[in-house]
């Protein structure tokens, strides 16, 4: 049994690794297939062909693709992801601090999403069909369907410009995270609330709930001690996947709120044709998503004894 679990964990790790290498290769090739010369973009319209060639060669862009890829992978393994064309710094040094900013934002957004989502979902489930239930579900539908940038700008208008409670954009202290976290977590809160609600309602209809009631548990105890844990199983998976989504999907939020995170860095890299930087950020995002899925699977296995055995 234990041996099985270890093998299966190793197998999953291997699959994850293959996925990441695949993404790296794909990104590498795609970025070089895009029409237009990055060096020409870098140097501007007035650069002569000779200079472009010289610089291309110094950047290693004139070598055959497989050689370039091998160089890249070898460098990446020793922690060297190249140097940004536009910013002139090692990609690692640019990505590091940006990732920390994004991580802080994602944690704040996840807190908003999960606390609000679970609380609303639970409340709606225990008051099924009542006005609050319909109100919460209506709001959560709005949460799922409103685009992030709209929520972001609404929040900026109301809380920053109109009420002056919070800064409009930028991070100087923790208050700077409040609005972006809500904007980014809002949609996730909606889907968590909906899943918690349906999952709790489904659990409360199971036979073992009757058994627990027949033992002498009150309704509230049955909810907290029996139904909630089982209802949270699918929610845990959703949350783990959401977290990687929040980490990698903050492009718009970071742009609207001027946060120097991975998303904003990627956007800069795209507009500047900064191949090494874009490779770095894309690879990081791929890594985060693959890990998020892996963690989601593992968490599900750990929390459900029926799955644990055969992981």
């Amino acid at each position, binding site marked *: 049994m234990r041996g099985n679990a270890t093998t299966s964990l190793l197998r999953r790790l291997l699959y994850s690794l293959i996925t990441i290498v695949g993404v790296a290769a794909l990104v590498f090739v795609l970025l070089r297939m895009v029409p237009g010369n990055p060096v020409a973009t870098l140097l501007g319209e007035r650069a002569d062909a000779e200079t472009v060639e010289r610089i291309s060669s110094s950047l290693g862009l004139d070598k055959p693709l497989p050689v370039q890829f091998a160089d890249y992978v070898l460098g990446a393994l020793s922690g060297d992801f190249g140097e940004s064309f536009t910013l002139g710094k090692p990609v690692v040094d640019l990505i590091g601090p940006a990732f920390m900013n994004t991580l802080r934002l994602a944690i704040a957004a996840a807190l908003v999403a999960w606390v609000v989502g679970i609380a609303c979902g639970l409340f709606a489930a225990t008051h099924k069909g009542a006005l609050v239930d319909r109100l919460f579900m209506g709001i959560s539908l709005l949460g799922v369907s409103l685009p992030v940038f709209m929520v972001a700008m609404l929040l900026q208008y109301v809380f920053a410009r109109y009420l002056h409670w919070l800064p409009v954009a930028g991070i100087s202290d923790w208050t700077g995270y409040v609005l972006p976290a809500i904007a980014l977590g809002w949609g996730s809160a909606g889907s968590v609330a909906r899943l918690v609600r349906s999952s709790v309602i489904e659990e409360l209809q199971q036979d*073992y709930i009757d058994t627990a*009631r*027949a033992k*002498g548990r009150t309704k509230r105890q049955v909810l907290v001690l029996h139904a909630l844990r089982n209802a949270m199983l699918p929610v845990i998976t959703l949350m783990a996947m959401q977290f990687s989504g929040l980490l990698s999907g903050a492009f718009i939020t970071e742009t609207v709120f001027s946060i120097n995170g991975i998303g904003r860095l990627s956007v800069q890299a795209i507009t500047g044709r900064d191949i090494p930087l874009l490779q770095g950020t894309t690879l990081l995002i791929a890594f985060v998503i693959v890990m998020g899925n892996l963690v989601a699977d593992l968490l599900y296995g750990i929390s*459900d*004894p*029926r799955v644990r055995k055969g992981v």
Partner: protein
Amino acid sequence: MLNSTLEVSHLCTSFFTDRGEVKAVDDVSLRVDKGQVVGIVGESGCGKSMVARSVMGLVKKPGKIVGGSIVLNGQELTSLDDKELCEVRGRDVSMVFQEPMTSLNPTMRVGRQVQEVVAIHEQVSKEQARQRTLEILSAVGIPEVEARYDAYPHELSGGLRQRVMIAMAMIMRPSLLIADEPTTALDATVEAQIIALLKRLAHTGTSVLIISHNLGVIAQLADYVYVMYAGRIVEKADVCELFDNPLHPYTHGLLGAVSSLRSQSKVLQTIPGVVPNLANLPAGCSFAPRCDRCMAACDSVRPELVTVGAGHELCCHLTKGVDVL
């Protein structure tokens, strides 16, 4: 000292649906004496499980007890609120459900699920509660209790799971155990084991109310039997009397539908038709549309329970004739 453990009088439990009131239990009275095993038999949908749920105070919305009284050990249950009922449930009256596969919490170790009952009703140390759990688990015939204590429900067979359910129901030594179709989901050999176990429990002084559509189970376990049809009691008698001298055409039908090694006819009888829609019952006897001995009175006048012998009551117009069957 009281002689009866449970006394249900004129119990009415209704469901209030869009199509009107559905009388799932209609004026049912029954009594379970100390140490007695009482059976309720009837087809699916005749209201037998609803009697059990009413006694447990676990009728789900939109259902509601609308009348009658339920007295357990001299205590009226229908006037208690949920908090007071929670003290009674599990301690004085407990229940074993039909489906052992789904009646246990899938993500909780079975030992903890049994132990939980003690924790709810008594202030004892964890070690004591665990010890009592192990004792009751071995008392219901679970082998290797120490290992099974930590097992999850999906790791146990159906029979073992039902034993766990019975252990859970018995750990507080309740005065009444309600078993709602306890063997229906099990195969025949396991069924026999569970019946033997319930029989043993009944000998220790616990009163048992057993609900089944299976007359074989009832015959093996019960001392006294109630036959239910469309929410009402149509016949009640001592178990031997009922099997020797069944009077209601419905009871006849049920007996005819049981296979027996001794029965002469090779083909099992069936009762034509289905249990009527409880929201729209016939004006007279609810069994009349399916009854092969239906008379004019049956369609218009509802029969009442009448004593026809020692401890034998019948709810049928046929009682009026001397030549009953």
